[in-house]
């Protein structure tokens, strides 16, 4: 049972449903793309809710739902350490290199 709230009362069923992340594939050959999130009591209902919320106008041919709690995310606070290192390292881009003369098939 959950810890009693400030009022000292608790109600079974008052807990909110868990969050799910929804990925929709628009058509064959494309990747699933994150469409948004929703609440659902379990994975079966999550899939149905995703159908109702995100494919009402024929947006998709395939849906994935993933428990939001199962997704490990990068920390927004460590953005600098994570994502700024590539800055200035232009040699990591192919366009950094000049094409040598006389090399065929480049």
């Amino acid at each position: 049972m959950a810890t009693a709230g400030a009022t000292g009362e608790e109600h079974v069923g008052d807990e909110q449903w868990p969050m799910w992340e929804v990925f929709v594939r628009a058509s064959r050959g494309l990747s699933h793309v994150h469409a948004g999130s929703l609440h659902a009591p379990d994975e079966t209902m999550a899939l149905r809710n995703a159908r109702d919320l995100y494919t009402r106008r024929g947006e998709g041919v395939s849906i994935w739902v993933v428990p939001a709690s199962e997704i490990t995310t990068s920390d927004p606070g460590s953005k600098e350490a994570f994502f700024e290192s590539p800055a200035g390292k232009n040699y990591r881009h192919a366009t950094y290199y000049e094409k040598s003369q006389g090399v065929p098939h480049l």
Partner: protein
Amino acid sequence: MSAEAEPSVTVTDVELDAELTSTGLVASADEAEYALRIGDDSLILAQQLGWWISRAPELEEDLALGNIALDLLGHARNLLHFAGTALGKTEDELAYFRDEHEFRSAWLFEQPNGDFGHTIARGLLTSAYQFELYTQLAASSSPGLAGIAAKSVKEVAYHRDHAVQWILRLAGGTDESRSRIERALINTWPYLDELFRDDELHDRFEGAPRPSALREPVMSVLRQVLAEAELDEPKTTESSGDGRHGHHSTYLGPILAEMQVLARRHPGASW
């Protein structure tokens, strides 16, 4: 900022599907009477389900019930439009300017929303019935009815799945949810029988399945769902409701009053 840096934004034109099927066909008197019966079923249920929007247990369920209501409204529009071709009336005239005794819906569809359990129990019964009905009607010798049924049955399959999923969860949830769904099934079950009664229309008109032929397939699906949810089949007395001939329960009047008030107060108004 240079002009090149401004990405040009275009909205892709979406080709919208036709809203009505079976257009261009003119119904016979019997086809029209039949279409009114099953069209009124869907219209009344759609109107009732609309009440849940903003009131369902979760936002996601608002959307689910709202989607089902819109599907049903689409079926009703098709059927009333088709019926109207025989009666010289538009779908709106049939929906908004008929009185209670002119509606042909069965009593099950006008039963109150009640709590969420009652809405789900009613949804299980209506969708199990409509699924069998439309499956058989899709093979009808009436091209108008067959076309509408073939389109509707896919959506009704989803409505039935929605109800089944919730029956299983309410029955297998808490003591409270189980007792509520049991009570809801007991209160709804008496209205099944009316759906399976043949009358003079079915003797005359062979373009539609006889209601009595739907009883076994519908009951067999319902029994499977109850067995899976480990619920007993309610032992109830059959309702003597006779909505197919315009005799309704006291619930229909207020539903119609709310549905029709705007169109009647401002006849011919448009968006």
